[in-house]
């Protein structure tokens, strides 16, 4: 890997350095825009005691749900979980710790983590169980709670196209949490559908500038649909 060429050519290389007990920040919303092959590689490596930061936790047998099978996740920060039986079971058995976090607060915590903002105030969650134990302060006559930033040892991200410098664009609503996740990893790994030449992506249309990205890998994706709704 010379200069700004961030390409790696195997998923083993892509996740090199991941260890037991690390914190992983993952992009994706439901099963849309999830780094499915990077997750599969984490499963393959059998690392344990992971803390995962992700809006959801996949489904049985796909996405982050894969990491439940061998109990690799010890703790998860998420806004909505339990779409899978295995998760429910591990939650009920206290085998996994779930820190429920409002969706907007979760997105902002990741962004803040990447942006050098250690904490911010939000009205979201004030007066609810989420606000308990958190500092409350009034701004503009309204109570807000203090929320701290989040960063991870690894960020795993699913992009659409990238150049070898790590500039990334996302496709449609597969963008979701990916751009924030990309900024918040000590090591940020992005898997994409296509790697293009530097200069092919319009500079002002890049969603994630390469400075945030450490490794880029081209993969192929199943892109499972969670709720298929069509009209005739």
């Amino acid at each position, binding site marked *: 890997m010379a200069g700004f060429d961030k390409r790696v050519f195997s998923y083993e290389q892509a996740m090199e350095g991941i260890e037991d007990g690390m914190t992983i920040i993952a992009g994706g*919303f*439901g*099963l*849309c*825009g999830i780094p499915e092959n990077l997750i599969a590689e984490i499963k393959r490596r059998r690392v344990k005691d992971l803390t995962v930061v992700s*809006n959801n936790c996949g489904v049985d047998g796909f996405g982050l749900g894969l990491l439940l099978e061998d109990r690799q996740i010890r703790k998860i920060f*998420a*806004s*909505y*979980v*339990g*779409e899978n039986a295995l998760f*429910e079971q591990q*939650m*009920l058995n206290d085998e996994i710790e779930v820190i*429920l976090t*409002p*969706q*907007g*607060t*979760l*997105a*902002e915590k*990741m*962004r803040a983590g990447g942006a050098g903002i250690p904490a911010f105030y*939000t*009205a*979201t*969650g*004030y*007066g*609810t*169980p*989420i606000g308990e134990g958190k500092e409350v302060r009034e701004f503009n006559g309204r*109570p807000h709670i203090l929320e701290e930033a989040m960063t991870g040892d690894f960020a795993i991200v699913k992009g*659409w196209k990238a150049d070898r410098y790590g500039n990334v664009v996302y*496709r*449609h*609503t*597969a*963008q*979701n*949490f*990916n*751009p*924030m996740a990309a900024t918040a990893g000590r090591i940020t790994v992005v898997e994409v559908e296509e790697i293009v030449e530097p200069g092919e992506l319009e500079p002002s249309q890049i*969603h994630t500038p390469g400075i945030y990205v450490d490794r880029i890998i081209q993969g192929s994706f199943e*892109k*499972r*649909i*969670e*709720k*298929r*709704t*069509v*009209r*005739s």
Partner: protein
Amino acid sequence: MALTREQMAQRVARELEDGFYVNLGIGIPTLVANYIPDGIDVMLQSENGLLGMGRFPTEDELDPDMINAGKQTVTARPGAAIFSSAESFAMIRGGHVDLTVLGAFEVDQNGNIASWMVPGKLIKGMGGAMDLVAGAENIICTMTHASKHGESKLLESCNLPLTGAGCINRVLTDLAYLEIKDGSFILKERAPGVSVEEIVEKTAGKLIVPAHVPEMTFEEVV
């Protein structure tokens, strides 16, 4: 007669104004999109990062990279914008969404809402609901007025853990349309054939009943 789900959606849809950006929660709120009045254009915001949600896709249009906050496959209408979750909640928390419609388990006379957690039951999470209720200035709650056992869900004070504090100002139940103001529910309209007495009986919170409470009317929808 208590309103049907469809009638509830129809009634809520009358609160839409031309040019409104609207976030519709899962369930009855989603149905509101089917009853947007003629001559009124609204833009639907889906909190996973889509402003200008369109119809469900045809088989040909189906795309796993295009979903809504309910994780259903959707389309984008011409002039839609797609963005990150941080940007989406910047819109929501920043008060840029004109109207939010969402369901609830309980609301109370101080505008508190409980909609996400029943202790002892499996807790799946609040998703974007806490951000939505904290961010919107204009929220309509859709819910049944009372439980199947007749217990009021319009309370003096919510029993369940809150989703947001002091943020709800309008409620549409299957029995009535009410506003919340200065620590009271105010009965504005009643469902066709539902008596004021029934609503009074089924409202546990403080309820102000004006001299005249008009009955809602519904046209036959084709």
